[in-house]
């Protein structure tokens, strides 16, 4: 038996021992939790097995991980499809449309019935997607794609314009804060006039350098032309470090949540 096999075997035995120990520990402790029975606790056991099954990927891609990967894939897809059919297709498309046509047939229609009947157009557009599978009628699916892309682009232009404009005005920073502009602020300190002025200068310089970095059609042949771009890239790297820190926090908290589940809900240690 080589070192690698021995290590893998030790790892599997270790996890198995953890499960066995956990089982006996809960058998002894379950009387301390009168509201917890084996029936209610089975969910925690399934959750714990799933957690270790997925975490086994950290060792290597293995059959346990693949089983749970496919279970997760199937559950996720099935849930989404069932939800879409029930809550969107049936509740928001079929039922109002059917009610409208029934009202037209019976003569009990209102002004809303006209709009609900128009939902048939949405259905036809949706079905046109499936012409993707036909070589002869592929062009029909392109109509739908065009409508979606055009509507999406139009909505995006509106939303982005309204979103971006206030960002431009918020960069108008007063880089020299004097007594007349802020008479109540002290001179020194981070929140004082000097500190705020320096912050504002940095803000404006960084915004300009980063904007300059993303110019693609301007030549940067001279050192003077290259300097703001290099500075912009440097500031971007600093911001990525800040992003890294924030991202790390979320990921560790997710792990902490799983560990808390294992300790609190499964092992009932805490």
């Amino acid at each position, binding site marked *: 038996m080589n070192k690698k096999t021995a290590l893998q075997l030790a790892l599997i035995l270790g996890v198995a021992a953890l499960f066995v120990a956990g089982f006996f520990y809960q058998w002894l402790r379950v009387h301390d939790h009168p509201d917890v029975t084996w029936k209610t606790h089975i969910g925690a056991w399934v959750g714990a097995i799933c957690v270790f099954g997925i*975490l086994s990927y*950290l*060792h290597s891609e293995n059959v346990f991980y693949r089983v749970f990967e496919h279970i997760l894939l199937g559950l996720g897809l099935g*849930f*989404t499809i069932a*939800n*879409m059919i029930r*809550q*969107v297709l049936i*509740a*928001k498309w079929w039922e109002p449309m059917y009610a409208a046509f029934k009202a037209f047939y019976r003569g009990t229609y209102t002004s809303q019935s006209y709009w609900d009947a128009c939902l048939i157009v949405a259905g036809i557009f949706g079905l046109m997607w499936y012409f993707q599978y036909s070589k002869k009628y592929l062009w029909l699916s392109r109509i739908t794609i065009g409508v979606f892309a055009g*509507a*999406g682009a139009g*909505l*995006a232009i*509106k*939303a*982005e*314009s*309204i*979103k971006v404009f*206030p*960002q431009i*005005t*918020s960069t108008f920073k007063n880089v020299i804060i004097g007594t007349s502009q802020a008479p109540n602020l002290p001179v020194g300190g981070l929140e004082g006039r000097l500190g705020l002025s320096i912050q504002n200068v940095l803000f404006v310089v960084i915004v300009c350098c980063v904007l300059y970095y993303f110019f693609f059609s301007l030549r940067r042949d001279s050192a003077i032309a290259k300097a703001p771009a290099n500075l912009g890239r440097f500031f971007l790297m600093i*911001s990525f470090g*800040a*992003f890294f820190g*924030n*991202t*790390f*926090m*979320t990921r*560790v*908290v*997710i*792990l*902490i*949540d799983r*560990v*808390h589940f294992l*300790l609190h809900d499964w092992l009932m240690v*805490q």
Partner: protein
Amino acid sequence: MEPDRAKPRTFVEWFQTLDRRILYVAFFVFVVGAHFVPIHWPSTPAKHTRALYAAIENAPLDKVVAIDSDWFAGIRAESENQMRAIFHHLMRRRLKFVILAWARNPEGQKFGYDIAAKVAEEYGYEYGKDWVAFGMVPKARGAELASLAKDIRGFIQTDMYGTSLDDKEKLPMMQDVENIYDIGLIVSFSYGFDPNWLGFIQGVYGTPFGVALSAIESSTAYSFVESGQICGMLAGAAGAAEYEQLLDLPESKRPARTPVNVLSISIVYVLLAILLGNVAYLTSLGKKQ
């Protein structure tokens, strides 16, 4: 770039050739151990957390608050505690609220409802009279928000039980809610906020918009907080802990403290690993030169 895996001579070379799986297991054990360390780190609520607190404190009582529950089980550690803290505040102020749900994320509706129901028991909030959970609607690149703003009842149509929003007996609260002008504040709970809220609601109607995000996405939201487009923000689990502190909740109602404490300790491990890794890398570079 990897150093030769032949027998290492120094600690630095050994560290560089260390199997990463050992680091994973060590980190897991460290996090488990950190759960048993009874240290509580003091924290000062951030400016954006206090801003969201102020926004809810100043929210008009004659309008409802819209809660956009767009998070999922993967970020439960952050969003659940944020949501619980915000619900405590809303109910303490006796603000009425509605929970929005999107078809692309069925978990959000379930989580939002469960947490609201649990907190509602403490404050005597009645479903239908003080709060309502809407049925799911599809997302459509912002068009759904534009429709929502103009006619909430016509667009959403039912609550999550299928009861019509026009039903005066079961949902009396909804009779006063027609459009965006009946909403005094929107708080979005999500992994990363949907910028269409700014483009179609906040920017157009001026409705105050606050967010409770994962720590990752809080970096992207800072520029909007700075410009005033977002009135306040909770950033990750730390944001939830800070908000619980602002609310001055009793110890038993501060579940966000545990993950934040463990996080503070776990960061020590990561900082050490980064430090050692960089020292090893720079040392190996020096040797190559």
